[in-house]
C-alpha cells in the first residue's frame, strides 16, 4: 500500500437521490483521501453505481454536497442551492477521470484519437504534445501498438485499458471506476485488474465499484459496503470482510468465501504436480 495522506481529495455529504419513488441514495457520506483506494461493494441496486456517478455529477443528486479538492461541485442543503455554470462544473469535474463498465470508447475514433480528444478540445493541449502523452499512456497500459486501431478491432480488455488511458490523459486527481471488469470475458479480467493495480502502485487516488471481492480485498485501503442506499459498513478490508457485525454484509461476503472454500482444493492440487516432477528430476 502506498502512503495515504490525511488530505481529503473528494468529499460527499448527505447525498440523496431518487428516481421517481425509488429512493436509491438515502444520505451517503464519504471522504476519500489522497492516495487512497476505496472499493465500493454491495448487491445490485444498493446504490453504489449511483453514488459513483454523483461524484462527477454525471447524475445530479437531489440533496447533499460534493467537494473535489476544496472546489465545490454540487451543493443543495435545505433551501440553499449552489448555482454553477456548465463551464464551472466542467472545470471541477475534470479533476476526476471515469472508467465505465461498457468502456464507452468513441467507435469512430482510433485508440489514439480517443485519448487525445479531450486534451485537445477541452484543455487545448497542442496536438503533438497530446499525441506524445497518449503514446506514453498506451505504452504504460501495455498497448504500444494499438494507437491506430479502432475500438472494434480491440478485445474488451484492450478497450478497457484504452479507456483507462483516455481518462488518465486529462491528468485527473482521482479515478472513478464503475465495475470496470463486469463486461469482460473472465480471461480478460486479469489484464484490466493489473492495469488498475499498477495505478494504485503509482499512488493514484481511486474509487472502484466492483464485484471482484478478492481484488477489493487485495487492493483497497478501505472497503465500503453499500446496502439499500446507505453506507452500511466501511473499514479496512480484512476487518470489514471478516466482521460479522452486519448480517447483510456477512451474507454478501459469505457467498464469496464459500466459493473460495469450495475451490480451495484446486489450489493445493495445482502445486502438487510441479512438486512431483521436480522430485523426479
Amino acid at each position, binding site marked *: 500500500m502506498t502512503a495515504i495522506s490525511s488530505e481529503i481529495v473528494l468529499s460527499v455529504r448527505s447525498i440523496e437521490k431518487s428516481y421517481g419513488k425509488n429512493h436509491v441514495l438515502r444520505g451517503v457520506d464519504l471522504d476519500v483521501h489522497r492516495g487512497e483506494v476505496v472499493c465500493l461493494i454491495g448487491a445490485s441496486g444498493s446504490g453504489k453505481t449511483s453514488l459513483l456517478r454523483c461524484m462527477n455529477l454525471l447524475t445530479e443528486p437531489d440533496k447533499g454536497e460534493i467537494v473535489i479538492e476544496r472546489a465545490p461541485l454540487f451543493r443543495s442543503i435545505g433551501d440553499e442551492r449552489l448555482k454553477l455554470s456548465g463551464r464551472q462544473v466542467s472545470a471541477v469535474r475534470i479533476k476526476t477521470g471515469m472508467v*465505465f463498465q461498457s468502456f464507452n470508447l*468513441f467507435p*469512430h475514433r482510433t485508440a489514439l484519437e480517443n485519448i487525445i480528444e479531450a486534451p485537445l478540445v477541452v484543455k487545448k493541449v497542442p496536438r503533438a504534445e497530446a499525441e506524445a502523452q497518449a503514446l506514453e499512456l498506451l505504452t504504460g497500459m501495455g498497448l504500444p501498438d494499438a494507437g491506430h486501431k479502432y475500438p472494434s478491432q480491440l478485445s474488451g480488455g484492450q478497450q478497457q485499458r484504452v479507456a483507462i488511458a483516455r*481518462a488518465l490523459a486529462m491528468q485527473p486527481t482521482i479515478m472513478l471506476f464503475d465495475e470496470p471488469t463486469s463486461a469482460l470475458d473472465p480471461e480478460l479480467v486479469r489484464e484490466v485488474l493489473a492495469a488498475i493495480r499498477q495505478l494504485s502502485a503509482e499512488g493514484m487516488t481511486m474509487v472502484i465499484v466492483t464485484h471482484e471481492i478478492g481484488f477489493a480485498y487485495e487492493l483497497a485501503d478501505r472497503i465500503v459496503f453499500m446496502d439499500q442506499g446507505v453506507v452500511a459498513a466501511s473499514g479496512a478490508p480484512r476487518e470489514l470482510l471478516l466482521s460479522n457485525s452486519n448480517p447483510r454484509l456477512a451474507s454478501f461476503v459469505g457467498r464469496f468465501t464459500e466459493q473460495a472454500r469450495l475451490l480451495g482444493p484446486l489450489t493445493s492440487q495445482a502445486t502438487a504436480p510441479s512438486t512431483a516432477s521436480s522430485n523426479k528430476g
Partner: protein
Amino acid sequence: MKFDPSIVLANWDILAYGLLVTLKYTIYTCGIGLAIGLLVALLQLAPWPLLRLTGRVWVEFFRNIPLLVLLMWTYYALPIFLQIQIGKETAGVLGLGFYASGFYAEILRAGVQSVDRGQTDAAIALGMGYVQRMNRIILPQALRRMVPPLMGQTIMQLKNTTLLSVLTIPDLLYQAGYISSFTYRPMEVYTVIGAVFILLLFPLSALSRRLERKEAA
C-alpha cells in the same frame, strides 16, 4: 392499338420542362423540410418539456395529415384563414416542405437518440460541453445511421411532387396529362413517365441500399 413512343418523344421539350419542375420542387421542398426538420428534431431533444411537446405536435400533425389534403388546404383554405394571397407555387412548396419536415425531424431525432447513452456519459466525464459533444461525438455517429433513411425520404419526396399537379403546377405528371390531352395517346405518355421516374429513382435507391449495407457492416 400499336405502342408508338415517337409521339411522346416528339414532345420531349414539354416533358423536359416538367422534369425540371419536378426536380426544382424536390430540391426546394427537401431543403425546407431538412431545415425545419432539424429545428424540430432539436426541439424534440431539448431538455425542456414544453419545447419537446411543441416538436412532438409538429411531427404528429404533418405525419398524420394526408399530403393531398394538406396541399388542398394550403392552397384553398389557408389564404382565406389568413386573408392573404398565396400563389400555387408558394402553396406547393410550403405544403410539401412542411410535410417533409415532419418525416425528416423523426429521422434526425431517432438518429441522435440511437447513439448509446454511454457515449454522452464518456464525453461529459471528459469535460466536453454540449456543442463539443454533439459536433465531435454524437452527430458523427448519428449521421452515418441517418443517411439511408434520409435518402429514402428524399426519394419519397420526389415521388410526392407528382401531387403538385392537382394545384396545376406543371411537374412531370401534369405535363404528361397535357401531352396526352392533345395527342390522345395516354398509353404511351404515361408509360414513358413511369419509366422516367423509375430511371431517375432506381440509382438513388441502389445507392441508399449500398450505404445501408455499409452501415450494417
